[in-house]
């Protein structure tokens, strides 16, 4: 695979420079992601002191920023108010069958973007079982067009994503993205020393297989 940086697709909604990150609340006014410190992430096999050192070292960014750049795919989801686990399961099964028919095997990318198959502007909202289903794939980041991850109990759904080590990205413009095609996503939280919800510039580059 090779990343082609000669065309960049911008997924971002603009932000005001007068915004204070500490005051960001849902529904969010711009494209934001969420940053969690390495000490609250699992699976890196680091000792407590090593975690602190890794966060101080700029060359360890592959550990503390790994969710925010890498391979991604857009899936179009059913036109519904809330995306449930069974809906997602069916969607992923159909995708896996398509890939198998082409002689390959489905490998879930670490980041997934979701867009409604309904009318333009229809926002996808995640249910708790959809979040749990996605986390079983070891997903690291989920990206949505909506201004918050869930229409109801948003704070709880954000916490559920957090518990399952899934970063989230909302307020994306996904209209120019081709479904089921691999892209290279970059969506780095803009500030270095702040944990929580932060504005970012979300972009895609084409990936040549």
């Amino acid at each position, binding site marked *: 695979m090779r990343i082609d940086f000669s065309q960049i697709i911008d997924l971002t909604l603009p932000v005001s420079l007068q915004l204070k990150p500490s005051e960001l609340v849902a529904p969010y006014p711009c494209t934001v992601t969420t940053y969690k410190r390495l000490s609250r992430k699992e699976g890196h096999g680091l000792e407590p002191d090593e975690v602190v050192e890794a966060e101080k070292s700029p*060359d360890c960014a592959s550990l*503390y920023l790994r969710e925010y750049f890498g391979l991604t795919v857009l899936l179009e989801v059913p036109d519904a108010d809330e995306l449930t686990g069974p809906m997602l399961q069916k969607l992923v099964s159909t995708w896996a069958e398509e890939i198998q028919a082409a002689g390959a095997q489905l490998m879930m990318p670490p980041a997934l973007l979701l867009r409604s198959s309904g009318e333009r502007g229809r926002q996808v909202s995640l249910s708790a079982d959809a979040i749990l289903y996605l986390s079983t794939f070891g997903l690291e980041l989920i990206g949505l067009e909506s201004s918050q991850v869930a229409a109801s109990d948003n704070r709880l759904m954000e916490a559920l994503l957090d518990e399952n080590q899934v970063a989230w990205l909302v307020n994306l413009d996904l209209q120019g993205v081709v479904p089921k095609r691999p892209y290279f996503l970059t969506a780095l939280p803009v*500030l270095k020393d702040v944990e929580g919800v932060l504005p970012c*510039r979300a972009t895609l580059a084409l990936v040549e297989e």
Partner: protein
Amino acid sequence: MFRFDFVWDLATSKPGSGEETLERATDTVAFVPSPDLTSYFGLCAVLTPASESDSVGLSAVKSCVAELEAEMTILRTRYQADVEMPRRFLVRTRSAAGAFSLDPAVIDWLYERGALLVGSDCSLYREDGRFTELASKFESLSLPGLFGLNLEHLEQGYRYNLLAGPLKVENSAVIPVRPLLVS
């Protein structure tokens, strides 16, 4: 899947920045933003010139580029490698001896060579809050620049990729950015 052996966070630290407006929350910024995002993504060279008095001058930067070109010539002739000089440059001016400035003539020279972007560890502002002479040079050339980068301990080379899309902001020449360098 992609695997990067090397991922470097080029943002500088600013504790407590979450309480400030985005305008003041980071010293790592893009100046003279380009609507064409391709300036901020792709192959990038890191130059680590020796300082001359309190400034990194043109001759030191030319030496660095010549070293990289010599390395590439060997790869092309001996191994038929398909290598080319990137059009994005990050120039380190800080060293164990202290922080230095960058001669604006360097920017002119890199611009004439077709640079799409030049970044450095220099500050955008003077102590009195006005733009430095270096910043004004970027403005006069309409060349996208990155200021306030953390380039410590980076090795000179041309096989890096820059990921540095600045925030999407309207009507501002100075925009916060979280740049990464990967290889």
